[in-house]
């Protein structure tokens, strides 16, 4: 995502010099009615192009509001708010563990409204962390690479397939570099919690000389272009979006279990317009509940997505709560990464 972000011409000059955290892209959506009124400062891990329709929809409701949108990596987002105390009104992130830790450490504000009341318990932690999407981790495969083979539906099937056709898939597997990607790390740690099979799979990936990626979009692109045959733990929402655009890929939600990430919003204590941020949270919640009901669709995977083609019973949504702090513990992280490296790098 970061590389993609850098690849796109920046629409606004990045004023990173004054800040110690790295902004990949920044764009200002001026207020539709042209007034120099309120500015909603958003810090987010989501690409600008995906956010743009949502910003327009919000500004249609609040025409006096300009939206200042900054894209950062999840680790940079955490650093900006935790260390730098940068003034942002709202933080949107796929790294729910870091968002949870921000809330746990008292760096976010509480927001209560009729809309937050509507959220189920699992989508609202302390009225501080609000989930507004449900995005499964999927396996994306290239149908051409599987010519004559059945597309695996479970991790066990994937392992068997890779073992029996090791030559065909050698060097053509892709997955997150969990050392680099916060989301990759989240998916990997949750996988390891759910089943031992994760480690067997990782070892097989290691033996097959798996490619390591920073982001989902890159993996999807490489599968679509035929560079790799299988990408593991890819954001299903991105994959389906690319599939809809005509990319030749197959998106599989593993039937043994599918880890589901919740994209979350928090209002940092440093927010200069917390009320505006609150109304944006309400807007996000409404967008992903009501629009879904009205069938208008939303740029984000709706929180109530029934999982097209997936088995709803296999879905394992990651619970927001103190458990997420465990893998953020430096000792725990160090231990996990060393095990992971042992498996994937085959040292």
């Amino acid at each position, binding site marked *: 995502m970061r590389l993609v972000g850098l690849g796109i011409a920046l629409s606004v000059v990045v004023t990173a010099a004054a800040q110690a955290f790295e902004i990949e892209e920044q764009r200002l959506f001026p207020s539709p009615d042209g007034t120099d009124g309120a500015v909603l400062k958003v810090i987010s891990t989501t690409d600008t192009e995906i956010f743009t329709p949502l910003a327009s929809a919000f500004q249609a409701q609040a025409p006096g509001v300009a939206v200042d949108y900054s894209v950062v990596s999840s680790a940079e987002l955490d650093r900006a708010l935790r260390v730098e105390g940068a003034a942002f009104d709202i933080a949107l992130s796929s790294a729910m563990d870091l968002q949870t830790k921000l809330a746990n450490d*008292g760096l976010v504000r509480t927001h209560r409204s009729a809309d937050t009341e509507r959220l189920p318990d699992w989508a609202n932690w302390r009225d501080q962390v609000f989930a507004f999407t449900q995005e499964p981790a999927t396996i994306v495969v290239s149908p051409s690479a599987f010519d004559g083979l059945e597309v695996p539906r479970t991790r066990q099937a994937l392992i068997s397939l890779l073992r029996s056709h090791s030559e065909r898939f050698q060097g053509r597997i892709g997955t997150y570099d969990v050392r680099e990607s916060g989301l990759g790390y989240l998916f990997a740690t949750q996988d390891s*919690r759910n089943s031992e099979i994760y480690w067997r799979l990782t070892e097989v990936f290691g033996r097959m000389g798996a490619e390591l990626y920073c982001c989902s979009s890159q993996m999807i692109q490489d599968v679509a272009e035929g560079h790799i045959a299988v990408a593991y733990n890819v954001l299903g929402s991105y994959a389906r979006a690319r599939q809809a655009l005509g990319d030749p890929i197959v998106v599989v939600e593993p039937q043994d279990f599918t880890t589901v990430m919740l994209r979350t919003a928090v209002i940092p204590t440093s927010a200069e317009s917390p009320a505006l941020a609150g109304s944006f949270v309400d807007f996000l919640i409404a967008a992903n509940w009501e629009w879904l009901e009205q069938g208008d669709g939303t740029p984000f995977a709706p929180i109530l997505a029934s999982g097209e083609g997936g088995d709803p019973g296999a879905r394992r949504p990651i619970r927001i709560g103190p458990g997420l702090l465990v893998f953020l513990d430096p000792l725990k992280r160090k231990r996990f990464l060393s095990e992971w490296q042992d498996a994937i790098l085959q040292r």
Partner: protein
Amino acid sequence: MTADVQPSGSIRRRLTLQLLFSAALLAGLLFAVVQNFAREVAEESQDSVLLASVTSILDAVTVQEGEIVADIPYSALSMLGNVSDDRVFYRILANGEMLTGYADLPDMGLSEGEIGSVAATGTYAGESVRMVSASRRIALEGGPVEVVVSVAQTRSGHMRRIRQISRDSLVLGIGFFAIAALFAVLAAQSTVRPLNVLTGSVSRRGPQDLRPVTGSVPSEMVPLVRSLNRFIARLKITLSRSEDFIAEAAHRVRTPLATVRAQAEVALQRVEKPENRQSLKDMIRAIDESSRAAGQLLDHAMITFRSDQLEHREIDLRELVMETVERLRPVAGLKDIVVTVTSPDRLSIPGDAILVQSAIGNVIDNAIKYSPAESDIEVELEAGSERAVVRVLDEGPGFGDEDLHNATRRFARGRNSEGTVGSGLGLTIAEDVARAHGGGLGLRNRTGEKGACVSLVLASR
């Protein structure tokens, strides 16, 4: 005449208030005890989850390749999320050196070198937290290392639970009080019920009913009822003595009066001077009146006596009425009053012939007394399935409003009785007899016509 009794409070109210007060006291106590107990349980439950978390982290601290490592289990912190949405902080110290976690977490409770676990409440990150710490010794090459694990959780969920418990125990207390109050009212009512029953049975009695109270009463009331019965017995003796005295006196007066009257009659035959004759006539009239009064007093005493041991024989009411009218016809004739009787062919009732005749006689006599000269008196007999009625209608002045209440009281006389002689006992006697025969005396004015209507009602079976 009744003396006004000053009530000194009410037993029922006093009992109710006392019971309500103790119920309120108990409800308050219940509220306090339950709340306190629940508070402790809630605190203990938070402590036990924290301790479980601490223990599982402590177990995960090991030595690997000469280094202390802590592999915090996922459940160690996620279990705290199951209880509430509270913030969670943890810290692992090895020999007082920070290993991992929140470095600035305050030291609470566990003093250095102490083995075991300690729970304490303190403040961290601007919130009240509950913290549990436990320690363990680990053997490292350089010697034993003391590892202290602390896990802290904010207490808002805990507070919320305590508030909920307070509300629940308040509802419990109020509910308990409501039920106890209901029972208090019922208990007070049932306590005074025997008193009310006794009061009712005594106050419902007729004026002649001087039987002792025999109904069963609670043991506390037995002395009261015994005293009451003794009192009634004394009253009865006193009453019967005075009745006896009146009867004796009347009897003793009547006989000499008869002699005096006979002498006056004889004297009347002899004197010729009109003024002398007139005074003799007046004398005779006065004597008649006196002997009638004496007769009535005797009648009354007799009724009082006979009512106590009434004998019920079949009597022919029609014949009895006819006989009485015949007996009174001369008196009526003096004022040219015509008495007519309408009656069914046969009408018999159970009763005491002497008493009933006396009653009928008194009613008709009363009517004659108040009727103007040359008027009519109608006596109607009516037979019902339950009751027989002897109705006497006259054309006299009728009753005044007050008379309707007072006319049957002993020695009371109607407002219209001025200028008429009489003792005022007549209707009292009639009413006593009617009561003794399961009926009563009805007094009213005739509707549409001038005159009174007196109904003597007697049970016909």
